[in-house]
């Protein structure tokens, strides 16, 4: 019989990874800028400035993932997201619409060009998220830069009540981190794809005593899951007409854990756009909305018919 306990890892590993990734993006950007400056000194005529490809995606959200996009400087956006229960409950839960609803309310702001910051609250475990998004590279029309690259970093805090301290003995046990590099390319007017590898770090995991002992007779504490979890997301957009897009998304876990391995997520949705509003309605497997929790804990399996309906609604203002 396993005796469960929890294991802690409060090392600053996630923060280190975040700064390394940001550093890489800045380096790449600096390389590109330097190239332009050198060309300018060699040729007296001002070189034609490469223009970024617009509208690779229409919104910062791409169903369950962030897209490569960062709105223009000064933009403020409100996000309203719903994930209903799984449809396998049938009529008794009206195919999930009457049960297990998860809601997220978020606010995003772009204080400087290419940098977005945000704050959100998700109903599941009263999870607050703080996040940053930085568009390091942008695909250009002349193909000098063939892809857009954006970094997304997210810190989530579980703020549900724990009066006895049984759930979370330490404050840092409530934290989860999510880092993602988003690489995207727009092909022509109608088609865009995106690949996004990610690293989720969970500060606390379940442990167990499996019967193994050390040389001096002490029980060895094992970990059910690793603290770090790698995954990769593939997403795409097909423009159906001037205001309607088809969105597709697949998330594949990479890290293998001893037990409780998360399931992949498959989702598809339709996106309707106006100047200020975007509405995405989708069918998929992820229910947590918080990216670290989606990638680390997803137990809905599309092979078992555990699909759910959801929607993302956003309102964008520009100042």
């Amino acid at each position, binding site marked *: 019989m396993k005796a469960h306990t929890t294991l802690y890892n409060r090392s600053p590993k996630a923060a280190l990874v975040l700064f390394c990734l940001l550093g890489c993006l800045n380096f790449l950007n600096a390389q590109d800028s330097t190239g332009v400056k050198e060309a300018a000194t060699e040729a007296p005529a001002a070189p034609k400035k490469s*223009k*970024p490809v*617009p509208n690779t995606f229409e919104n910062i959200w791409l169903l369950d993932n962030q897209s490569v996009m960062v709105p*223009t400087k*000064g933009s403020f956006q409100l996000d309203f997201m719903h994930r209903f229960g799984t449809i396998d409950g049938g009529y008794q839960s009206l195919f999930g619409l009457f049960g297990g609803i998860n809601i997220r309310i978020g606010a995003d702001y772009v204080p400087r060009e290419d940098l977005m910051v945000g704050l959100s609250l998700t109903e599941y475990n009263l999870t607050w998220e703080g996040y940053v998004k930085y568009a390091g590279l942008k695909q250009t029309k002349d193909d000098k830069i063939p892809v857009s690259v954006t970094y997304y970093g997210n810190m989530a805090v579980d703020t549900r009540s724990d009066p006895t301290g049984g759930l979370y003995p330490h404050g840092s046990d409530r934290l989860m981190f999510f880092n993602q590099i988003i690489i995207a390319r727009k092909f022509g007017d109608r088609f865009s794809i995106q690949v996004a590898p990610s690293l989720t770090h969970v500060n606390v995991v379940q442990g167990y005593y499996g019967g193994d002992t050390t040389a001096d007779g002490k029980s060895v504490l094992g970990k059910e899951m690793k603290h770090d979890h790698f995954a990769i997301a593939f997403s795409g957009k097909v423009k159906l007409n*001037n*205001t309607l897009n088809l969105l597709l998304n697949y998330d594949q876990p990479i890290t293998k854990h001893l037990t409780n391995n998360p399931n992949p997520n498959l989702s598809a949705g339709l996106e309707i*756009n106006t100047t200020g509003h975007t509405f995405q309605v989708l069918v998929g497997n992820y229910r947590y909305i918080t990216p670290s929790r989606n990638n680390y804990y997803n137990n809905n399996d599309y092979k078992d018919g555990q699909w759910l309906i959801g929607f993302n609604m956003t309102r964008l203002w*520009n*100042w």
Partner: protein
Amino acid sequence: MKTKTLSVLLLMTTFIVVVSFTFSKQQPKPWNVPEKNAKMANPIKSDAASINTGKASWAKNCASCHGKMGKGDGSKAAKLTTHPGDFSAAATQGQSDGALYYKISEGRDDMPAFKKKISDEDEIWSLVNYIRTFKK
């Protein structure tokens, strides 16, 4: 009794007419474009690709007020203080590309400043090219 009814009807009609005129759409006031902006040449050739870009942008950003064909009959037009105008008419088509670009970019009153919403200048020039297709 009959006279009283007629008087009430007359009073109501007068009230409706007065209110209608008071709250009717204002006609557009003059919109002066700086000369250097009005003289700006359109750097985007009006080809099929540009028209398609402009058409997509129009559907997303403009059609809800200005209407699908620029007649000023979009679903939100009734809520506007100023009538959005008929873009197929000479009043719009007679303006330079630079003037149209300036007005789309800078906005005024009900009209948002689209330079804050459309980051790609070429897309705004393509919108100008698309507006030219409304010409009667």
